[in-house]
């Protein structure tokens, strides 16, 4: 089978592009469009400390800066989580409402690896992927016997069970409500910690928390080791997902989504393919969980609660299900909103509307007040509803529509990189 698969969102791509795609398979075995998408994403993630910090320190807009390590790490880690979820939901159409369970299992595996064997993050991450994969295999084997809403409920049931167990009975393994942290009493086998010294996650001696700070004028840019490691992993995960999307396997998954019955009639058994997709997507979630532990060396059961599973669904939908860049966009958008909107308070609003007459100023603040600060979930809910109602393709579809407005004359091609450009917009 030749590489004729294409993203449904880019269905506008004509026959000519398709032929071109098969002819020149460039870098990394990707066609031209995907290569440029990958390169753009790579550049954006590598330059993120600059791009996400466009406002000088101390200015009134500095609170919109997202270029601090903690938030940037969350961007890429949840990006991985959402990419993995998208491989399942976007390609096969199976809506899992229990994906956070795999994230949690991965996290627990990683922290035990760090507690017992070594503080190096590589074995921890590998273990998190393996454990999440095994767990996903078991859950998927059972859940995939049903489809549609039954599948959603089954995955939800498994995730809630894992949460409840981690919270109560499995306390010796999971630490119960308090969760697990690396403590001064832990002495991993392959580390030479002084007694009483609290171990830190590292990569061959490079501390995850070490940062290089660059001051240019009023700007302060932070380059964090943990972020760059997570970003490289995210790029690898992203590359993998492009390959899966463009592979015969990915095409098979799309066939399952569009009409499983017809697939069965042609004599193909869809189950191994969906199961494989489920396990892959569970491994992505485990990878995200492992990275989370690598960054902050702690884990608690609330990571597996069903709202966490709901969040990744929101991310994928918001960005654009079934598109390559969509989930990353959605994850970045939600995490950005969570951090920035919840930081805005009434004083900030008063500053913004200071140019208005007093009465109108107070009125504007009164109107916007419920949507900011602690009310950011309300904003999220409303944005999410609007996206589902008016823009089922998510931000990527929005980007495509805008792109189409601007260049009616040029047909198709290169729409996705446009969507990728949006990644910058929240910070700009």
């Amino acid at each position: 089978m030749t590489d004729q698969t294409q993203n449904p969102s880019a269905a506008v791509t004509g026959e000519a592009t398709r032929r071109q795609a098969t002819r020149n398979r460039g870098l990394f075995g990707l066609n031209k469009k995907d290569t440029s998408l990958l390169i753009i994403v790579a550049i954006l993630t590598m330059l993120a400390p600059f791009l996400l910090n466009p406002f000088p320190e101390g200015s009134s807009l500095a609170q919109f800066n997202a270029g601090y390590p903690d938030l940037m790490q969350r961007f890429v880690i949840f990006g991985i989580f959402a990419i993995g979820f998208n491989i399942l939901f976007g390609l096969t159409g199976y809506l899992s409402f229990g994906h956070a369970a795999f994230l949690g299992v991965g996290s627990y595996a990683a922290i035990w690896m760090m507690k017992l064997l070594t503080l190096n993050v590589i074995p921890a991450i590998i273990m998190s992927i393996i454990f999440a994969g095994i767990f996903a295999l078991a859950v998927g084997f059972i859940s995939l016997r049903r489809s549609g809403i039954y599948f959603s409920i089954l995955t939800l049931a498994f995730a809630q069970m894992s949460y409840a167990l981690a919270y109560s009975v499995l306390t010796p393994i999971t630490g119960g409500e308090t969760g697990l942290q690396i403590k001064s009493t832990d002495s991993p086998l392959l580390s030479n910690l002084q007694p009483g010294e609290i171990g830190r996650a590292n990569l061959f001696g490079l501390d995850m928390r070490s940062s290089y700070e660059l001051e240019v004028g009023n700007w302060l840019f932070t380059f964090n080791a943990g972020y760059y490691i997570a970003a490289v992993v995210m790029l690898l995960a992203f590359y993998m997902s492009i390959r899966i999307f463009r592979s015969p396997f990915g095409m098979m998954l799309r066939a399952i989504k569009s009409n499983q019955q017809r697939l069965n009639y042609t004599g193909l058994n869809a189950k191994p393919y969906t199961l494989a997709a489920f396990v892959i997507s569970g491994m992505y979630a485990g990878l995200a969980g492992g990275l989370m532990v690598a960054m902050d060396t702690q884990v608690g059961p609330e990571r597996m609660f069903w709202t966490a599973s709901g969040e990744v669904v929101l991310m994928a939908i918001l960005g654009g299900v079934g598109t390559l860049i969509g989930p990353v966009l959605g994850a970045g958008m939600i995490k950005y909103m969570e951090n920035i909107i919840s930081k805005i308070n009434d004083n900030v609003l008063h500053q913004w509307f200071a140019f208005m007459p007093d009465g109108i100023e107070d009125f504007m603040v009164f109107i916007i007040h419920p949507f900011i600060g602690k009310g950011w979930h309300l904003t999220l809910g409303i944005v999410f509803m609007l996206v589902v109602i008016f823009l089922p393709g998510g931000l990527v579809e929005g980007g495509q529509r805008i792109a189409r407005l601007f260049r009616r004359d040029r047909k198709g091609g290169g729409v996705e990189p446009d969507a990728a450009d949006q990644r910058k917009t929240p910070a700009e």
Partner: protein
Amino acid sequence: MDAIILQILNGLDKGSAYALIALGLTLIFGTLGVVNFAHGALFMIGAFCAVTLQRVLSLSTVTLDETKKDFLGNPVKVETPYVESWFGPEVGATLIEWSVPLAILFSIPVMVAVGFAMERGLIKHFYKRPHADQILVTFGLAIVLQEIIKYFFGANPIPTPAPPAFTGSFDFGVLLGFDPFTIVYPYWRLVYFVFAMLIIAGVFAFLQFTTFGMVVRAGMADRETVGLLGINIDKRFTIMFAIAACVAGMAGVMYTPINSPNYHMGMDFLVLSFVVVVVGGMGSLPGAVLAGFLLGILESFASMAEVIDIIPGINQIIIYLVAIVILLTRPRGLMGRKGVMEE
């Protein structure tokens, strides 16, 4: 024996709540074919109707009582609720104490309005979209509704006591000839169970014995044919949606004395109610009620100390475990109809 009876009784109130929510969910699914993730939010709105009414009734005027002095010698501030000054102290105080049952009357118009607004404003546009889209948009709506409630009422649970006539417990064991104090059961839970049974019976009677109900049942079986007969089935289904919203709302109102309402109570119940619906069988009303009570009672059995000793943690996961087993062995659920939700 007495322990078993006690556990069955304990399971009844939670089971009643599951059954009422699952009944509403199934009504909506059976009529409109919509998977409503915002149904838990309706339950929560009902509960907050009770909170609102309680607060409205206890609105007070503050007067200074010159006859009493506090320790600084200033006149004591006395709060007199408006209802007490209007209807006299006794009637007023009784009104405030009975705010939860009164809230049922208050909740009906509210829930009907909310139900109509939801169906006409949002869900109507999602009939033709895939189930995943319906789940997602109602999930978003649930988040929005619960955040609105959180904005107005705060994040903490708000205690709403039952009327004093029902606050005690009664010794059920004596009635059955056991020793005193073996089976003690709070009055309000009994009230809740009776109330739930009445509502369930009411809904079934409405569907079974009225012309309106007959048309709705016909529409559930074959929507197109009913439409071809010149009956405006959409309008009736909208009314059914409002009724389902009402059922969820009233279940919420009556549940407030058992558990103080907070903004995420709806979501907590929703997840379990979906499991209940799936166990009962998608689209089967008796199945939903049966599964609701069954799972409620099972849950209370699983939380017995003797059971937890044998299988620790079973009380946390029993419902999900049962759901998984049922879905795998009886894919249609306990009483599921053929051809519902099957691709």
